[in-house]
């Protein structure tokens, strides 16, 4: 089978599965992806009846983490889940946000999603695009270009170690082998190795872009608080100010809340309309948690979020005051 055929098979399997589940009354809704209104964009899609299943698609544009919708969607539901979506589902299950019996997970192995921002930066507004066997042809306002998928794979997906769902009721497509047996954090290490002032300058610049629209938070499957600390009136953790110091306070608070839980799906960064490098912060926490506590979030249902547990031997030298 060619890549296109494989993809089409997955799509038809998704549709068939959805049709069956809905027809049998096993679920009330299937949460998957549909073709978006813009080129290279997919959009979350909620299918309520067997008649609508043909709007479901699957390809490299399916970038949203659908786990973000699951807890808020009432009834029994099926969800099309990539590796990262499934990891988020695991954390949500660990944190009592989901009832496993109400959930049917259609697992799909994922080679990664397209970083359309990168393409947009080169070709301008994208007018048309097509994907075929690992190649992406784009027609843009500033010119046309053809890419290999690997060139425009989202940064998150480049270090992904869990392309296959870690929890699922049904698997579609072939399993993907990943070579990394240990998590790679070259991006974080590179930032760590910069000087204090370089790092400060970098995050100042990033934070000055943030407009506090909270798309990052709302796109995150694990930001499900009834009331986010930024919205809390008493105490006021943050003022209403939108400036880089306040924004950093928000982002720092948020990543601390995600520390040991974040599944590194990259939804926050992709959701950000301003291109703030939010993932840089989450990745740092992910690296620390991995290195200090040998913990990766959402890879097994038995696991617990890293900050919910401790060991008497947890490292402490690096943060205790030097005497």
């Amino acid at each position, binding site marked *: 089978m060619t890549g296109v055929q494989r993809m089409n098979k997955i799509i038809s399997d998704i549709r068939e599965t959805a049709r069956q589940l809905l027809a049998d009354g096993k679920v009330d809704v299937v949460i998957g992806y549909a073709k978006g209104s813009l080129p290279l964009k997919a959009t979350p899609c909620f299918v309520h009846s067997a008649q609508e299943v043909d709007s479901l698609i699957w390809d490299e544009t399916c970038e949203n983490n659908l786990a973000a919708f699951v807890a808020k969607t009432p009834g029994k539901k099926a969800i099309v889940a990539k590796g990262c979506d499934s990891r988020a589902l695991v954390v949500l299950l660990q944190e009592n946000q989901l009832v496993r019996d109400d959930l049917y997970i259609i697992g799909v192995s994922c080679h990664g999603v397209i970083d359309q921002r990168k393409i947009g930066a080169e070709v301008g507004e994208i007018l048309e695009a097509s994907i075929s066997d690992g190649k992406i042809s784009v027609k843009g306002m500033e010119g046309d270009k053809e890419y290999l998928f690997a060139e425009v794979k989202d940064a998150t997906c480049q270090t992904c170690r869990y392309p296959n769902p870690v929890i699922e009721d049904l698997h579609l497509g072939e399993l993907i082998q990943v070579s990394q047996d240990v998590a790679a954090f070259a991006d974080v290490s590179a930032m760590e190795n910069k000087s204090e002032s370089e790092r400060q300058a970098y995050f100042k610049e990033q934070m000055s872009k943030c407009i506090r629209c909270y798309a990052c938070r709302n796109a995150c499957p694990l930001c499900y608080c009834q009331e986010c600390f930024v919205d809390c009136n008493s*105490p006021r953790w943050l003022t209403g100010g939108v400036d880089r110091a306040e924004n950093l306070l928000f982002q720092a608070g948020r990543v601390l809340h995600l520390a040991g839980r974040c599944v590194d799906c990259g939804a926050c960064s992709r959701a950000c309309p301003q291109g703030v490098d939010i993932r840089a912060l989450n990745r740092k926490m992910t690296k620390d948690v991995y290195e200090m506590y040998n913990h990766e979030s959402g890879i097994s249902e038995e696991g617990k979020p890293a900050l*919910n547990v401790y060991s008497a031997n947890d490292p402490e030298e690096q943060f205790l005051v030097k005497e």
Partner: protein
Amino acid sequence: MSQNKIGSVLIVGAGIAGIQAALDLAESGYLVHLVEESSAIGGTMPMLDKTFPTNDCSMCILSPKLVECGRHLNIRTYTNSQVVKSEGEAGNFKVTIKQKARYIDLEKCTGCGACAEACPVKVDDEFNQGLGKRKAAFKQYSQAFPNAYGIDEKNCLYQTRGKAKGKDICLKCVKACQAGAIDHQMEDKEFEVEVGSMILNPGFKVFDASSLDYYGYGTIKSVITSLEFERLLSASGPFDGHLVRPFDQKEPQKIAWIQCVGSRNSKINHNYCSGVCCMYAIKEAVIAKEHSHIPVDTTIFYMDMRTPGKDFEKYYNNAKNNQGVNFIRSRVYEVTEAKDDSGDAVIRYSTEDGQICSDQFDLVVLSVGLEPGDSSKDLANMLDLKVNKYGFAELEPLSGVNTSKEGVFAAGAFSGPRDIPETVMQASAAAGAASALLSDERGTLVSEKEYPPELDVAGDVIRTGVFICHCGVNIGSVVNVPSVVEYAKTLPTVAYATDKIYACSQDAQASIKALIEEQKLNRIVVSSCSPRTHEPLFQETLKEAGLNAHLFDMANIRDQCSWVHMHEPEKATEKAKDLTKLAIVRASMQQPVQPIFMAMNHAALVIGGGVAGMTSALSLADQGYEVHLVEKDKVLGGVARRFSTGFRGEDMKAFVADLIDQVSNHPNIKLHVGVGIKDVGGFLGSFTTTLENGEQIAHGVALLTIGGQEYKPHEYLYGQDQRIMTQIEMDEALYNHDSKVENAKNFVFIQCVGSRCDENPYCSRTCCTKSVKLALKVKKKNPKANIFVLYRDMRTYGYFEEDYEEARRIGIIFVRYSENAKPVVNKEGETLVVTVTDHVLDRPLEIEADVICLAAAIKAPEDGRKLSKWFKIPLNADGFFLEAHMKLRPVDFSTDGVFMAGIAHSPKNMEEVITQAKAAAGRAGVALSKDQVESAGLNAFVNKRKCTACGTCEAVCSAKAVTVDLVNRVAVVNDALCKGCGACASSCRCGAISLRGCTNEQIVEMLNFL
């Protein structure tokens, strides 16, 4: 026994045993008279730096108990006091106490230390083992209770030179004391108390090493005792925890410990093992390494390394394998001073194989043993108690705590050397025993304070009253108190602010009370000393004025300001203003907090009907509580039914039969025998346990006494030949006159079978003694028998050392083998041959054995895991129950209302099992004595609207007080269990759970005012 029992108990000695017993009894409804010879309570523990095997800071874990004991309404503490006379009988004693003059009025002294500052006399500080100096006006240690100074009349200039002659010599302290607390005319007094029972725990003294001149103690400066070394390590010691040699301040790089100094020595009538020295030496060696800035080489010279306690072996292995402590099995001949003028000491010793060596050390620490204290002997004399040949009290067999006199109980080192947890266990056991004796009189003598009805301040405009204390000159001489007062007046909510010379004085309290009424104050802030010592005092004043005690906060502008910034008065004043401001902010946001009461079911459930379970059940039943005893076996008695005799020769069969008889006939005990447990739910005060037969038992507390199991050896051909048996089997064979043992000539005992190995890394504690006992039994019956005991370390701790010594004396042969050269058992035809390498002869030894007795390990009970899940209690790595605190809460679980005793906690002998069983019953009795489960109320609470039921709070709560209600999707705090640490609140991402008295709002508002 007297018919007119009295509901109060006299406790002699206020070390950790006395404090624990006093707290247990006072909390269960008895008036306690606590008599302490020295000027402060605490005993030996405050002198120790860290405690094994957890390396806990001794002072840290003790000090909350000191405070609690010190301010308990029903504990009357008499310091500088001794019991001088006693008459009467169990249930009703009249005791005369003599209290020596302190010369400082406890009522007036604020503990400020001005007297000590002014006192010109410097003498050796006993608390620091003479390594430092103190004044004649002194406090033993800074956290001491009473938090008051005293004058040492033997050294005070006025007392020694002035008073008799009527001359006003010195008296600098009188001038220095702004509180007018010093009264040099104070006189000793004698008074009588009536008590129903007595608990004696006068403690121990350490062996005087100078009496053995070959150790050089007292002549060689670099030879010190282990207790002196503790003070060197201690952060509050004479060198502030800086590890140096006392005489030249040199940082030692090479330190040696010599074990058994004054222990295991029959020549000086110290033929017992002090039990604690091996562990403390290892601990000191490890801590020394951690403590020092430079690498330290540590060596321990020992005969047998005796680490048979819970988790001790692990500690020892860690020291040996990971920390690099050297262990040399040896016999030390002498310690001499190095010839090179370095001040060092040289140890001459012989190793196991007979080589004689010597080595030079910067510091030599003598691991001195424990012996009866001087006052112990007087006390035993006065009360006419039986003592053993060493002078320790002799307890009634298999009683754990009973002295030879009815109604008089003992705890701690009074009856022999023991470590802290054993001491604490005995104290709780003694308290339980006293409580059982006096149960009819519970609650008759205790008092409860009454307060005016509480004012409702809800919705009132906040009017904060601020009181800034001068503390004489302590604060006032550094901080500009009036300017702090003026500043306070400008702050939000402050309706009134003033200064006080001593805010804690009686008249100041009266004035605060009056001002609360006059000025309609509804929040109070006191800026003075530490809330840790004084908060309860001021809160008391609030309550007396009708205000809720929590409408209050303190700023510590003395201990944490004026005293530590003495040379920067301006900055100190600024800081005092800021600290006062923060306290005002916090206080203004305080809300009344009411204690929370929950129902208390007064029945106990005991799980496991062995000796531990039956003993606990009886003790609780005698204390007057209904007890359900559940045993899954068809018969009671547990493993003890298979034992013939106890370690002191007691008839175990008769003992167990008697116990079964007692529990079967006790009106308060309901037996559930032959039935297991299906499920457990609930918490302190209201547990419900479902038995396998469907029966449900409601109970307020649970005691887990499920015993252990004998290791089934898969080594040494066990199971392949009837002549190879475990200790229990051999005991049975001897008891039954089995021909296998009756006719045997050659006996080989192999120790550490399944213990101290990879599979079970701990020591099973009892097997060395058991083997020695069995060997003695055989040898005495058949003197011609050849008996070999193959061992790794002979761990005949305590008085069992006598048996070991006797065994060697009468010709039982002890052969040591090492871990990596274990004995080998072969069967050559019908002959059993044991081969072992003898370390002394350094060659293999072959023994033809008629009987091989294997010292099989004691393993954790199988059911531990189930109970662990049901009761939310932890197990240690070896599967034994893990207590709430290894030192101070040895029978409690971290889950309130659940207690443990016996083998399920860790291997131990019968006497120890009984002590622990009584201790568990004592602790359980404290809980059961309450009408209701009460919590202070400074608990976590949940905002249901914000809660997402994520379970983080539940995961981080060590008290198991928070659970998620998945039906209503909200976290629920169990007020009976919540300890108020706030880990849940700081872990809650959505801000749904917070802590009363320390809310996010309060902290953030304080930060806003920073």
